């Protein structure tokens, strides 16, 4: 689904911090949305999440840097990181160029059922993105 200049694949779930999750059984692949990467600007470095680390929904678990700005990414799900995209350490711009494929952040073994996530075609999600675009002037 396209909202403005931003792409939001229909098969993913989204939070209100500009992250996405693809749920497959008890595993979630997570990353930053197209809108999120645009807000961040050119990402010169993304920290590789530590495999084995427990993460909690809404809590920062990894950092990235763009324009000398260190930002924190909040976890979209609760669980344990079982795989991390190590290529991001060398090419942070993968998140900018391909946020839903090559720019994925981590795979997480779910520790709790994801709650409060939205689908791209959910009217509530469209409203949220519209308000975010207004807030950020995007």
């Amino acid at each position, binding site marked *: 689904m396209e909202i403005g200049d931003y792409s939001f694949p229909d098969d993913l779930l989204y939070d209100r911090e500009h992250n996405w999750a693809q749920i497959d059984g008890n595993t979630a692949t997570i990353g930053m949305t197209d809108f999120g990467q645009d807000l*961040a*600007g050119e990402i010169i*470095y993304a920290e590789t999440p530590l495999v084995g680390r427990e993460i909690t929904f809404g809590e920062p678990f990894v950092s990235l840097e763009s*324009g*000398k*700005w*260190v930002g924190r990414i909040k976890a979209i799900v609760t669980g344990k990181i079982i795989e991390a995209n190590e290529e991001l350490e*060398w090419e942070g711009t993968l998140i900018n160029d391909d946020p839903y494929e090559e720019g994925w952040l981590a795979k997480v073994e779910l520790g709790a059922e994801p709650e409060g996530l939205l689908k791209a075609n959910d009217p509530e999600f469209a409203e949220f993105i519209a308000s975010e675009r207004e*807030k950020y*002037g995007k």
Partner: protein
Amino acid sequence: MNLYDLGRVPWLESQLIYHAFPRLGMEGLILLAPAEPYVCIGYHQDAEQEVDLAYCREHDIPVFRREVGGGAVYLDGQQLFFQLIIHRDNPLAPRDRVEFYRTFLAPVAQSYQDLGVKAHHRPVNDIITEAGRKISGTGAAEIDDYAVLVGNLIADFDYETMVRVLRVPDAKFRDKVFKSLRENLTTLHRELGQAPPWQTMVDTLARNFESVLGPLTPAELPEVVQEKVAELARTHTTEEWLLAPRRRFREDRKVKIAEGVEVVQRVHKAPGGLIRGTVETQHRKIVAVGLSGDFFFYPAGKLADLEQALVGIKMAELQHVLEEYYHTNAIESPGVTPEDLAVALGAASAR
């Protein structure tokens, strides 16, 4: 918002105070200078890769990892630092990062103008003079629910010590970094012939920030900040914190001087030998080149000519120019092709 004009404070406090504010739920504008020199590295940098830690130890120069982005820098009392801590929901703080920098670097650029230097903000986060030289170091971070912006008015700068504390492969590279720093980073002292009085800088900066933040109320640091600083000192001064492996490097060694200005050294192993290329670029255009290594290059003397011939060309033209040079000058370099030289100079990925 409160204004904390702290004057000179111990170097560690000059860093930890602004780290304490967001953790205490406090906003504020802090103006200060470190009482002692130290080296400060960016949050994602690898201290051992970036800084000559042995040199710093020998010379009692402390090294600190801040939670803000950017690169390694040698700081001392010749810079007046501003540290703005503002809640992300404060209506004065634009949520967009480009706008955030634009809003809060405007008073810094205006301060330079008021002090007599025609400087302006160049997005994303540089303050530059009319001649295009950087004149302020800035960086930002999200810490808890706060945006933190730090930067400085540079009264003067110790270029020699700056390049000495950096970890670089050899003297030639260090020399290139020094020359590039001198060329691309300037100071109030260099621009005006002398640095303005300290209090004038403080007053100017505070007044210009007021035009964006509204009236600032002079305040003293509450005791709770000192307690939090003491607590943070226990974690942020450990070897574990400083030496935590962050960003790693492959064979490239890159020092960013200013936006669009870089010095890169790359070692490339060609069949004919190891090539060490050093290249300084400004907006992808070559400014200076160095080529060395254990490969053969004939006719003798043509390697130095080649280095000169590459000055002024765009990186995108590099391989083509090298091929032309080889052809025109009948170059023979067994096991080293123009493409190898281009790779050593960073034209294509050697990964």
